[in-house]
């Protein structure tokens, strides 16, 4: 092959690979553009604060926003302590070449790959039928916990987002210099004092990043809550942790697939999608910013 043909083929293939990247970005742009074009005009105070009316062809999406918020908050409360403590174990306490640590790592990796619908089945089989019905029996037979609702859905999502939190927290702990730990220990601090006063404060931005990523992931998941508590339509906001709830993602699904009058629901559908996208993108964006800030500081 002569030098010029080689240059040419190189240029050609470089161009193709660049095109691949451009195509992905373009797809993202089209998705966002379509959502904005279709949903922008729908964004209004009434849309954010109102309820669906007239067979979900008019009104707002407040119950869905509320349900999503409460659900992800409960999920966060459940997942953060467990995720952070697991990462602390892996990075701070596990002995080198610990079997348990290796097992935890493999488990977490595989947990991250379990299909979200299987988490739904798990929530249904374990939380609702096993724990919930067991609790109801123990509490005297009245149906309270043995049904889909906020509590079980949020716990299901907590299991699903556990790997996200663990991975982010471990990265954050890695960024805290060992020197600081040694300095603290040399001053007579115990391991837990060092952890609490030096390591965790240093890792806080990274842990926060993990929390935000988990929220963003949890807020967008529909398949698990499909089986564990999301409701098609509710006249009232959830009042207890056992209540079913409306949800932006599920609402999107419902409006897109179950509507008797596609054209009539279209604006609402687009508005809902746009709100959901804005929510997850904002969260992702904040996480990316936070992370790049911590990374550059760790490398400084």
């Amino acid at each position: 092959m002569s030098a010029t043909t080689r240059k040419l083929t190189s240029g050609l293939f470089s161009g193709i690979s660049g095109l691949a990247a451009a195509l992905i970005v373009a797809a993202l742009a089209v998705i966002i553009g379509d959502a904005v074009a279709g949903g922008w005009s729908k964004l209004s105070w009434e849309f954010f604060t109102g309820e669906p009316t007239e067979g979900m062809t008019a009104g707002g999406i407040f119950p869905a926003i509320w349900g999503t918020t409460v659900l992800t908050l409960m999920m966060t409360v459940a997942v953060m302590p467990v995720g952070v403590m697991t990462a602390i174990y892996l990075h701070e306490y596990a002995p080198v070449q610990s079997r348990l640590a290796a097992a935890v790592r493999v488990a977490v990796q595989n947990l991250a790959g379990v299909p979200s619908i299987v988490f739904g089945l798990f929530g249904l089989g374990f939380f609702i039928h096993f724990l919930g019905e067991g609790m109801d029996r123990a509490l005297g037979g009245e149906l309270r916990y043995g049904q889909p609702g906020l509590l079980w859905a949020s716990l299901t999502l907590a299991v699903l987002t556990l790997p996200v939190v663990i991975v982010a927290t471990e990265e954050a702990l890695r960024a805290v210099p060992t020197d600081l730990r040694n300095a603290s220990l040399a001053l007579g601090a115990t391991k837990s004092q060092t952890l609490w006063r030096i390591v965790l404060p240093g890792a806080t931005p990274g842990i926060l990043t993990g929390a935000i990523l988990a929220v963003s992931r949890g807020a967008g998941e529909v398949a698990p809550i499909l089986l564990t508590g999301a409701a098609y339509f509710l006249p009232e906001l959830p009042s207890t942790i056992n209540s079913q709830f409306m949800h932006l993602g599920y609402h999107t699904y419902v409006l897109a697939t179950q509507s008797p009058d596609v054209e009539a629901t279209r604006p609402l559908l687009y508005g809902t999608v746009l709100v959901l996208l804005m929510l997850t993108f904002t969260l992702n964006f904040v996480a990316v910013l936070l992370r790049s800030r911590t990374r550059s500081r760790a490398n400084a």
Partner: protein
Amino acid sequence: MSAAINLESAPRPKMQARGLSIYYANKLAVKDLSLDITEKQVLALIGPSGCGKSTFLRALNRMNDLIPAARHTGEVLLDSANIYDRGVDVVELRRRVGMVFQKSNPFPKSIFENVAYGLRIAGMNDRAELAVRVERSLEQSALWDEVKDRLGDSALALSGGQQQRLCIARALAIEPEVVLMDEPASALDPLSTAKIEDLIHELKARYTIVIVTHNMQQAARVSDQTAFFFMGEMVEVGPTAKMFTTPTNRRTEDYVTGKFG
């Protein structure tokens, strides 16, 4: 009568290593070392890099415990009690035997909080008392005049030399009996180095000091005793003046005269 007088005037060993060997996994890093560390004197550890100085130093306050592969045989005595005895409280030990690291490592906290750290973890919370102790430590480490107006500023904003003196102040705040310093000035400019050396001179009135140094002149300037390490063994120890003028061992002589190292 005369025996008693002798006993009082003879410098007392604050710490002693007895037949101490330290291994990393199966690699011998310090070999069968016995050494007395005299109270309120400065002992300098010199020798080519990799010869086990830091390893020995870390054995004196059990920082080696944190390295999973490290193990040891032999004893280290502090006031005649073996610090490796089963009943010994490591936390208490490290408060009595403080340490300053090669690379200054202030916490990402304020100047004040850095110095107060050791006191706070020991349970001191009284603001006034903390302030007194912080001031005293900063004065001892000759940093007070430079930082007294900005105690609330981040310690990371200090210069390299100031940071290292802050780390010394931090170690002094909990009033240790022995201070271990691992090449405390190796990363500093000559001016800051001089300041630290002056400081060590002052500190020996109150503290027993062990300093690792790469710099022969520095050892000559600051120390009373010097121990020469070579490939994991302590080749020779003695009064600094003698070590630098008439060492008994040829390897020591070669090293201090700059033939290798």
